[in-house]
């Protein structure tokens, strides 16, 4: 919660209060995110699902800021909530009626998915707990947009170019695929 910390003029590393505050914030955000995520994958209403997705995405933006990655957090809000979710909503609109509001889930499929996802969660969690059980976050200062920009245009210039080309290709591809003719 570096923005908050700066606002109140506290050193994030030394202040016990901040840490407590951060933890409380994290707990709240995490609970909300998990609840929304669960609802998103289980709700029958597709539009509701999209809205739940918005909550999850916003939550993760908050997490990013909590982690001192402001630029990523802001980008998250801009791109995801601003663009992608809108795209989704359009998609839902255009395909509405295909399954109606509801869809009947096959119990068998759900069971299998549950098993796989549960197994995955257990294995991952186990591995994480095993490995990072006492690793603390000791970030000295939040990253600035400037450093992110420097980094992108120096060290990661080639991936950046590649991403640009990818976006272009996806753009054209999407048009080609969805074009009516």
């Amino acid at each position, binding site marked *: 919660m570096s923005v908050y910390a700066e606002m109140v003029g506290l050193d994030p590393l030394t202040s016990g209060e901040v840490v407590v505050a951060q933890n409380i914030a994290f707990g709240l955000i995490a609970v909300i995110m998990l609840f929304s995520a669960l609802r998103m994958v289980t709700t029958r209403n597709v539009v509701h699902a999209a809205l739940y997705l918005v909550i999850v995405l916003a939550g993760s933006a908050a997490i990013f800021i909590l982690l001192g990655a402001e630029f990523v957090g802001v980008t998250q809000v801009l791109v995801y909530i601003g663009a992608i979710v809108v795209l989704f909503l359009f998609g839902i609109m255009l395909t509405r009626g295909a399954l109606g509001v509801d869809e009947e889930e096959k119990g*068998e*499929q759900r069971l*299998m*998915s549950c*098993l*796989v*996802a549960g*197994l*995955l969660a257990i*294995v*991952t969690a*186990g*591995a994480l707990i*095993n490995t990072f059980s006492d690793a603390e976050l000791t970030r000295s200062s939040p990253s600035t947009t400037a450093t992110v920009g420097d980094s992108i245009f120096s060290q990661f210039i080639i991936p950046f170019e590649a991403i640009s080309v990818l976006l272009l290709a996806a753009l054209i591809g999407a048009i080609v695929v969805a074009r009516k003719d």
Partner: protein
Amino acid sequence: MVTELFIFAESASQSGLPLGITSGGAWLLRNAWLIPLLPALSFLGILFFGKRMPRKGAELGIAAVGIAFVLAVLTGLAWLDHRDNYHGEETHLAVAAVEHHGEISHDEHHDDSHDEHAASGHSESGHHATHSSLAVSNTVTWFQTNGVDISVGVLVDGLSVMMLFVVTLVSLLVHIYSTDYVGGDRRYTHYFAFLSLFSASMLTLVISENTLQLLVAWELVGVCSFALIGHWWEEKPNSDAALKAFLTNRVGDMGLLVGVTILFFSVGSVLPDTFGSFSIAATNAVANNGLLSHTALLVAATCLMAAVMSKSGQFFLHTWLPDAMAGPTPVSALIHAATMVVAGVFMIARLYGVFFEGLSIGGSSINLMALVGGITTLVGASLAFVQRDIKKVLAYSTISQLGYMVLALGVGAWTAAVFHLFTHAFFKACLFLGSGSVAHAVHSFDMKSDMGGMRKAMPHTYRTFIIGSIALAGLPPLAGFWSKDEILAGTGGWGLFGGTGGNGSYTLMLVMGMITAALTAAYMTRCVYLTFFGEFRGHGDVHESGPRIVAPLWILAGLAIVAGLFNLPKGFQLVPDSFQERFGHYVEPVAGYFPTISHATPSWSLAIISTLVVIGGASAAWWYYFVKVEAASKASGKSLTELPNGPTTTYPLAKIIHNILDKKYYLDHLYTGIIAGGTKGPLARMAYRFNQQVIDGTVDRVGETAVKSGQFVYDKIDQLVVDGAVNTSGRLSSEAGGELRKIQSGKVQSYAAILFAAATVLAGILIVIV
């Protein structure tokens, strides 16, 4: 926990185990490998160019074997000189005693120069005392693995020189004989190619320097035998016989593999710096000096005996040999009488140190080898009685005589056994070739239905056959008598007039030998009668064979007469001392690689008794066939096969009692009813039935069972259990969602599910392991 002698060859001239071999000697002796090389080259020549040659490759084979024969004779002469006059340096073997689990104590003991030699297990001696009976050894590295040089080379001593002579001579004669006998055959060229290959392999076998080389040659002669028995493979019985021969031999070879392996490592355990050695001389020397545990030697010797039993047709692995008569007769003469089948005997003679120590031949009154030999000789002789096929008579006779040789080796009469091998090669080859000559004329091997009275039509064959038969029966002064007599003396079982000495008193073996002598004389008399006397029962016009068949017969017959004179017994007062025991003098090694055996002294009394036994056996048979059957046949006007009381009729007990009352001549009954009939009838029949049904049946049954169990394993276990398990696991996993196909449902989500599940499981495994 064996702590052996501590013998270190720090300077080789001082110590080490004398091996009795030298790397010096005459050029011919050191280069005896040229002799097998010639037929090997001719094999390749015939294989690639044979069909284009004017005589279809036969000339190449004959030339090669002919030159090999000349070389063998020259080598033999060189050996005679070497044996008496060579005084060279003897090779010594550096032995390290290794304490079990002890330190590798020899490490610090030797210097660099020694290491080089020790790697091969030998160290050349400096100026050690010379020995006058050194075998010549000459080796080159064949391959090396794990720092052990496995060499290939020659070990030339009296035994190998004698074998070289016998093999090349018989092979040459058989080559010549075959040009007539198989002339016009459709695989004439192949036939000669395999004869060449066989000669090469057999010659390699007899000069083998090490057991591995021996094993290689051993298998190669086996495969030549396979190819030649199955020469006419269009008919199933022939290829069956070939298969049977090969497989039976393989069973024995298993013993050979294991035995050679045991010896390799056992010898290696007492040599410094190497873990094994195949060298025959080293193996024998180490065994003779008590450096190896008795258990290891006993196991090795027993395993090797299995090989001997199969290759040399010993009871109870002998059943392939009579079947092997399906091959062309010259092949039977060369391979299944004179040379290949004696490979087992040769191997015992070669590795005598191992057998002598392992089976305690010097000490006990009965051992495995002597017993096997004794049983074989009896079984073979009794079975020879009931055969109609002339070649089978000779085949059983060969089994019996091979048993004689093994018996002799088993009682420690080494020279006698080897000498019998020598003489037997000539007279048995003569008999086989003679039978081939007859069969060539009448186009059949059946004595009862297609032969008889051949003595007029085939005088040369008849005379040579008679000579061979007498030699085989062992009547003086022909070859068989001398060698047989030596064996009987060698048993040490003769107690009259001071006895004969030897390595123990093998009385049982003496009795067995005596009985066999009588039986041999009797069945050969029967065979001669059925073939050459009485009325001709076959069809067509019968002529004497051509010169290419008759000439080898006479050469062999000549040798069958004189071969015995090479080893007149010591103390035989009729000839000067320098003519006595020549064979033993030159052939029997007196060297580090040969055990110390005690020699029997010949006994006049034994010789006379054994001769009487032979005459008894012969005259009993003579009386029955030449007098009784002949008369009956004349009286009834019927041919032999139609006689009601023919030789094939059994004599049940009741009938015998009736006969005793009815007939006047008690002797008549004694000879015909009890001795001849009893032996020939129930006893031989029983033995034959045992042979055919129990032993042969067991072999068949084992084969059948193997196939059946194979079928079972394949059908039930492989296809059902193992394969089934695989298939079932697939089915089970799919049954959760329907059928196996459902996994390939084409649905992206199921694919994704599998992907995730698999990734998770693998990750989980990784985590658990890390």
